């Protein structure tokens, strides 16, 4: 494997793809990784949209936890809102999420802190949470971003105390007299140790320990002592008057937790099929380091198997990786950002809207007839301003299930600009006949099929001199090969 291919692999996995200038500089992968780590050192919060008055009303948390309350419902007093106010409220909430969504996508495409954003994206799917409150969702997102490369123990504790998560997993309703086990169950099943390493009784005992974990009207964590069950509990074989922090600490003392997290990380960064021979040593080191995430990813990206052919160009890009990757590699800018939301929904992954607490399934589940055709049309839309027509489903818009059909239908050319000049520079020294091949080596992580290369060459020959580069790029991005990284 050439140095260029290794570099590209690193930029795709540790970030959202290479830019032409990253490759032109041609550092060795170790040096590039050091730079990625340095660039990721600083934490910059994602800015939030301006929260308006009507929305603030929707943000008021439920003062007396009520099991009947729809956890996704907007306002406690929604019955008192008129239909127009409700509509306006829904519009503002939707707009706020759109702003956060496209703001983050923009950052994925442009931020030098590629590794921090990639890790944030990983944890976004791991600590999957979907709430109707933009401010709470953003706060959780920034907490994750801040701790994304720190100690997993700090991240876990912080996420567990986030109002968004407490609400999403019903810990607001977890009270001494009537425990709600949802948070306790998911924290073990999905966030830390995984199924098979705890018993049903441990869930019940952990739920008791988390009673009273709540939040106030300002979106701050509060411990409501009167709702807390301070009695003795038996959890994973240990006995004590445990509180929530104790439960998390005991979970982290189990090596299975390190293994569970490492496996998930491996599947995200390396290969959908976990290889225990690779994972075991990593998990042990992760445990020994006291759950140091930076240390873990550095070990992973410097492992000799990381650059094995089996791990390069063999992972199906998630919709966000696909979109952010095109934006980053080609400097694509949209005049109106809204279509970026439509693309995400049509492709099956919308930031801030995971399908459930288990996050996105990933891998081959991204691909069906519709999503694949849509993926192959996307380069035309972004690079040739082609029109695309698609009606989104109602359940993909559950913020406002009464959206009309026309609101859910997208049919217009997208006004987008791409910066192809850096690519032209990258190819400047390559003779014209070899440019399609050279370009394919930069844009594709999987080797191009010979007959496809021939077709791209034919397309290039037919194109005008000034349209040639754009034609080649569009063709290559429209290949199944481009779906892989």
């Amino acid at each position, binding site marked *: 494997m050439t140095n260029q291919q290794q570099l590209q692999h690193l930029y795709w996995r540790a970030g959202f793809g290479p830019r032409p200038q990253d490759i032109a500089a041609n550092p060795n992968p170790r040096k590039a990784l050091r730079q990625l780590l340095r660039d990721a050192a600083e934490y910059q919060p994602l800015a939030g949209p301006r929260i308006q008055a009507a929305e603030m009303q929707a943000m008021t948390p439920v003062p007396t936890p009520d099991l*009947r309350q*729809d*956890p*996704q*419902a907007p306002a406690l007093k*929604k*019955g*008192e*809102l008129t*239909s127009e106010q*409700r509509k306006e409220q829904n519009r503002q909430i939707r707009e706020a999420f759109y702003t956060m969504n496209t703001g983050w996508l923009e950052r994925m495409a442009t931020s030098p802190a590629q590794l921090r954003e990639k890790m944030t994206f990983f944890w976004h799917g791991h600590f999957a949470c*979907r709430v109707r409150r933009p401010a709470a969702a953003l706060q959780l997102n920034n907490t994750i971003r801040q701790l994304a490369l720190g100690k997993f123990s700090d991240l876990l504790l912080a996420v567990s105390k986030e109002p968004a998560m407490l609400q999403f997993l019903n810990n607001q309703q977890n009270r001494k007299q009537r425990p709600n086990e*949802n948070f306790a169950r998911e924290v073990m099943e999905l966030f830390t140790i995984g199924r098979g390493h705890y018993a049903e009784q441990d869930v019940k005992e952990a739920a008791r320990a988390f009673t009273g974990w709540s939040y106030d009207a300002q979106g701050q964590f509060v411990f409501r002592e009167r709702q807390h069950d301070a009695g003795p509990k038996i959890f994973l074989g240990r006995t004590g008057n445990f509180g929530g922090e104790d439960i998390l600490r005991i979970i982290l003392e189990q090596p299975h937790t390190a293994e569970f997290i490492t496996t998930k990380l491996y599947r995200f960064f390396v290969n959908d099929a976990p290889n225990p021979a690779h994972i075991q040593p990593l998990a042990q080191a992760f445990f020994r380091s006291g759950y140091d995430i930076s240390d873990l990813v550095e070990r992973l990206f410097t492992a000799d198997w990381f650059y094995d052919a089996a791990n390069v160009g*063999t*992972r*199906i890009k998630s919709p966000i990786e696909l979109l952010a990757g095109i934006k980053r590699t080609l400097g694509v800018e949209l005049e109106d950002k809204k279509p970026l939301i439509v693309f995400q929904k*049509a492709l*099956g992954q919308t930031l801030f809207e995971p*399908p459930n*607490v*288990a996050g996105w*399934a990933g891998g081959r*589940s991204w*691909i*069906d*007839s*519709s999503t*694949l*055709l849509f993926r*192959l*049309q996307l*380069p*035309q839309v972004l690079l*040739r*301003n*082609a*029109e695309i027509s*698609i*009606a*989104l*489903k*109602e*359940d993909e818009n*559950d913020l406002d*299930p*009464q959206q009309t*059909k026309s609101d859910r239908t997208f049919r217009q050319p997208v006004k987008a600009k791409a910066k192809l000049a850096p690519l032209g520079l990258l190819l400047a020294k390559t003779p014209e006949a070899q440019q399609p091949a050279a370009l394919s080596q930069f844009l594709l992580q*999987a080797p191009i*099929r010979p*007959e*496809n290369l021939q*077709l791209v060459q034919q*397309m290039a020959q037919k194109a005008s001199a000034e349209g040639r580069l754009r034609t080649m790029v*569009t*063709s290559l991005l*429209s*290949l*199944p090969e481009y*779906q*892989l990284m």
Partner: protein
Amino acid sequence: MPTSRRDFLKTSVLASSLLFVPKFLHALDQQGVPQLRNSNGKRLVVVQLGGGNDGLNMVVPFRNDLYYKARPTLGIKEQSGILTLDQDLGFNPHMTQLKGLYDQGLVGVLNSVGYPNPDRSHFRSMDIWQSGSASDQYVTTGWLGRYLDSSCSACQVPYNGLEVDDTLSLAMKGELRKGLALKNPEKFHQVTQNRFLRQVSGEKAGGSGSELDYLYKTLAETASSADYLYQTSKVYKSAITYPNTEFGKNLKTTAELINSGIESRVFYVSLTGFDTHVRQQEQQGKLLGDLSGGLGAFVEDLQKSGQLNDTLILVFSEFGRRVTQNASNGTDHGTANNVLLLGGGLRQKGILNDAPDLLNLDQGDLKYQLDFRSVYATILRDWLGADDQAILGSEFARLSGLV
């Protein structure tokens, strides 16, 4: 420079991406169809009512004082034209065609269908209904997708399960097999058509099982299916008048596919907008009229072509509404709800179980008396001849002698 859709399709590289479809796809048509002929010929049409349809105002308990007490202005009065089904229950006045089908003995009404620990979030509850999971389980495949996995693993084509829409629902996604979403065969075919396709020759299927092979295989199946569906659907053009609604058009497409002899076993259609927090009567009435009119035409279409006996229609929503009306003449998110079954193959018809118990509520919501997975199990085993237990992951009591 903006281009029209037609120009785009003529000249686009997208189109050319399909020229990368290898030649082996042409063999698929011949392989896929005969395998499907081994089926028992039964098909299922699922109609999803999105947003949480209020079952109590669809199948109205018009003899129950508790109903009118909980809904002083929202309750539907008997004199407003309730379509009486039996002594206690009647259809919403807008459901005239469905009442006609009911009188023909083609409809079964199930009351209070739900699941334990119901979730009142739209997306989560729809997720539960579509995946067929329990409320504390997270399953990434759909119940119909897993049916395709189990019963059609040798089928080469994705059109065994068809969704009439632009995108595919979770319900239709299996581990190995996925359904195919298309708004109509012409549009779908147009997207996959291109003049470069013929240029491709001599490509071999990879067969290594890699992700790249998977992408090519999906692409090949998509193009092949688009071709097949387009050619075949030309066989039958419906002469029935459907309501001029999105839902009506989608049912018409479904009927044309069925009547053209498409061997798909599962069809999926949605009708949305049932989230009636405010001014429910107006909105739900219109939607139930759309539902009734659409299904009326659809059933007539299938009756005429002799396909109705082999067709079962399942109508469901992710939850019902709160029993008590709210301050805005609407209802908030609730729990258990009605499921409708329609078709010529129903062996039991009419009201199939007890009316909702309005006295015995769970904090203002209906308690479920029938788990929706029992309905699924019945359909899977007794109608489609599939292994319900394997598909649903556990055993649910089936409704004996229903289909």
